[in-house]
């Protein structure tokens, strides 16, 4: 071969073309959601006429534009839903467990079949990145149905004695941070145990539950076994106040949870509460540093920090604090914030204007109290509700940002010197939902875990969910467990 044939020159290797690596937008199509313009209530196996109800708008938080209008369930609507659930209860609860399992398996498979649609609906209504709704929310929702479908005919062996009985009609009020997943967490164990349900989705994120209603119809679930009543706090209050409800399961703020507990105190209604948290990620100097940084980042920026078990406090051993903070801040700058439908987005939109205001209020308090603020330099979209990932250093245990649940993409970094001090600081909160421990020394991890007052303790990981594992809190984070064999107890008369 002569060299004349080879005329590629260095100039052709245009370094500007080969050097950087930006990702073009890769948006999932919003039309996959197939949204209706208005939705009624799902009661007794059918959707009511949207025109029969007062309607309210549900917004896309990434644009602050309306997606659809949704029915505002009145106390009469709640009454009809509870009555339908009551009518459905005898047949559903006396059905062989294997028959109930058949429906639950069917629902799980339909969630998988309609996964893309559900993921897009969830991302549009909630603002979370499509990567998370696609890879976490929707697959996990199916997994919870699969898991509890398996229990439906094995309740005798769940450890609650022979032939444990369902409670009756369960009123289930769920939050806006994981709308579909929380519906699955509530419905799957309740149905497996033989209860019938009235589900009240969150005011700002009702749409995926309404798609789920369509899936329940597709699965031929008997009428009235699950009723879905959209609305605001007043609708939820009507459900809590309804005398025909045997059980209330609530996931949401500690404030509302406290109110519900007070109201139900006068009645014999069963109650489980999954409330707020101020989770601590405890990092020892021998932690696996790269995976720890990922876990800390995921612990607080997953779902924009709208996670009750978020690792919103980073407790780091003083000897490596500078190194850890440097690495965490570097990683924060890499987070891709923006269009939630873009498959490469890491952090999406804040769910509502009200939540954004709360995050802003608390971060301003953090600055005013003397903590040092580091905010990602990422560009934020002009419309919608957005908050750039933020880390506070020089945080004192007494600062509001170390004590109050921010429920946003804001991390507070504190330091400790000894395992005893780490435990003391982690426990120095009114909450008790989740903690993480990062160390390569197993004996110390176990020592710390034994002493932490939290319902969930992760070792060398964070925000990891599995249907086989019970989840729930202690103290002001609530009581009762969801998931695993323990999750059945909340829906059985034991």
């Amino acid at each position, binding site marked *: *071969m*002569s*060299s004349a*044939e*080879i*005329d*590629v*020159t*260095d100039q*052709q*290797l245009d*370094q500007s*073309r*080969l*050097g*950087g*690596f*930006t*990702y*073009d*937008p*890769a948006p999932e199509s919003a039309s996959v959601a197939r949204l209706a313009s208005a939705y009624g209530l799902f009661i007794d196996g059918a959707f009511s006429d949207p025109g029969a109800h007062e309607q309210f708008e549900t917004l896309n938080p990434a644009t602050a534009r309306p997606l659809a209008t949704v029915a505002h369930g009145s106390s009469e609507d709640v009454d009809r839903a509870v009555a339908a659930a009551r009518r459905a209860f005898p047949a559903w609860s006396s059905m062989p467990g294997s028959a109930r399992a058949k429906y639950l398996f069917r629902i799980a498979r339909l969630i998988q079949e309609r996964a893309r649609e559900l993921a897009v609906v969830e991302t549009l209504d909630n603002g979370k990145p499509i*990567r998370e709704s696609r*890879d976490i929310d929707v697959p996990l929702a199916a997994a919870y149905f699969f898991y509890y479908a398996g229990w439906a005919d094995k309740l005798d062996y769940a450890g609650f004695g022979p032939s444990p009985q369902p409670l009756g009609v369960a009123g289930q009020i769920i939050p806006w941070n994981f709308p579909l997943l929380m519906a699955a967490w509530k419905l799957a164990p309740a149905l497996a145990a033989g209860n019938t349900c009235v589900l009240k989705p969150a005011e700002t994120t009702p749409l995926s539950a309404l798609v789920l209603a369509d899936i329940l119809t597709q699965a031929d679930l008997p009428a009235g076994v699950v009723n879905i009543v959209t609305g605001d706090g007043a609708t939820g209050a009507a459900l809590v106040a309804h005398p025909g409800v045997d059980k209330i399961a609530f996931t949401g703020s500690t404030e509302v949870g406290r109110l519900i507990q007070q109201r139900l105190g006068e009645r014999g209604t069963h109650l489980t509460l999954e409330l707020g948290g101020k989770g601590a990620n405890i990092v020892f*100097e*021998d*932690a*696996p*540093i*790269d*995976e*720890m940084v*990922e*876990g800390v980042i995921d612990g607080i920026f997953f779902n924009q920090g709208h996670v009750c078990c978020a690792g919103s406090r980073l407790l780091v051993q003083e*000897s*490596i604090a500078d*190194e850890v903070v440097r690495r965490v801040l570097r990683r924060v700058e*890499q987070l891709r914030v923006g269009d939630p439908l873009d*498959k*490469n987005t890491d952090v999406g939109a804040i769910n509502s204007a009200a939540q954004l205001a709360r995050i802003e209020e608390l971060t301003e308090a953090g600055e005013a109290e003397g903590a040092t603020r580091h905010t990602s330099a990422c560009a934020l979209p002009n419309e919608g509700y957005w908050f750039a990932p933020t880390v506070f250093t020089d945080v004192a245990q007494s600062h509001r940002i170390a004590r109050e649940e921010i429920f946003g993409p804001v991390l507070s970094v504190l330091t400790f010197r000894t395992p005893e001090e780490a435990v003391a600081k982690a426990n120095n909160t009114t909450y008790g939902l989740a903690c993480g421990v990062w160390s*390569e020394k197993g004996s110390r991890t176990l020592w710390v875990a034994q002493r932490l007052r939290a319902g969930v303790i992760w070792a*060398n*990981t964070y925000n990891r969910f599995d249907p086989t594992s019970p989840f729930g809190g202690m103290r002001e984070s609530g009581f009762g467990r969801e998931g695993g064999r323990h999750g059945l107890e909340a829906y059985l008369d034991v």
Partner: protein
Amino acid sequence: MDEVTTTPLRSVGATSAVRFAAHGSGPRIESEVELRSVLASLSGVDAVGLEARAAKLATRSIKRSSKLAALDLAIAMVDLTTLEGADTPGRVASLCAKAARPDPRNHEVPSVAAVCVYPDLVATAKRALGDAPVAVASVATAFPSGRASLAMKLADVAEARSAGADEIDMVIDRGAFLAGRLGQVFDEIVAVKAACGPAHLKVILETGELVTYDNVRRASWLAMLAGADFIKTSTGKVPAASTPPVALVMLEAARDFAESTGRVVGVKLAGGIRSAKDAIRYLVLVNETAGTAWLTPERFRFGASSLLNDLLMQRLKQQRGAYVRVDEFSGD
């Protein structure tokens, strides 16, 4: 009473990062004890977390112009490789033509970074490439097993060098590493580096034989401390070769080493990378771990053979909107 005077220890801080910064002019390992202490100071790797991170980065969606740019970048990073007992001068010459002009009809397609051959075929490759901007890399040091005396390994390197190799891909002594004779592994790399002269030294860790991610991290640091210009995953001769988690550990090591010492070491992945999709996923790993500074053939390479044609095919597909026949490209 006599006054006792002591010299305070030089402050090195808590991490290896600070330790090396204190040296000023990059790392110098003076003893096996020091080598062991540096490697022992490295953070452990949590396998579950590492694999989860690699899997998460694999979900990045690279489309349109960023895909085209990534494909060109990947082509320019290929070390087009033939390491068979059946290699002949004709086969190598043919490979060199492909390396210089991967797609002869399209001058926008860059040349690959290098061709990679056994030492006895270096001269053939140099002749075939002529003035083309393609380096000749040669495996040496009793590739692929590394089971030979140091003298033989150095002779192997000398032969490749005298035939004109621009880059030397050596293998470490995995047996010595696994037996804990870290000093021996280190000294061999130092000796080979000296024998390389101006040629770039790539150190093959054979991660499939080191097995654990902790070992991969330690071996990466060992090789970089000993003077490697590149750390490379595999010979391609054992079943477990380059995987995304292994690449992630090595990229983290290269990033941390550069931060600690100021010396930038490249990373080469080899073995089992056949599709453009995989190559782009690895570029995402580079981009989001080591950073854009590594997104150049100077610092990142793919050791591969069949990968190149898939990169070319995907490139054409991006431009034409439809796939072309495999036979549109030469089978080298």
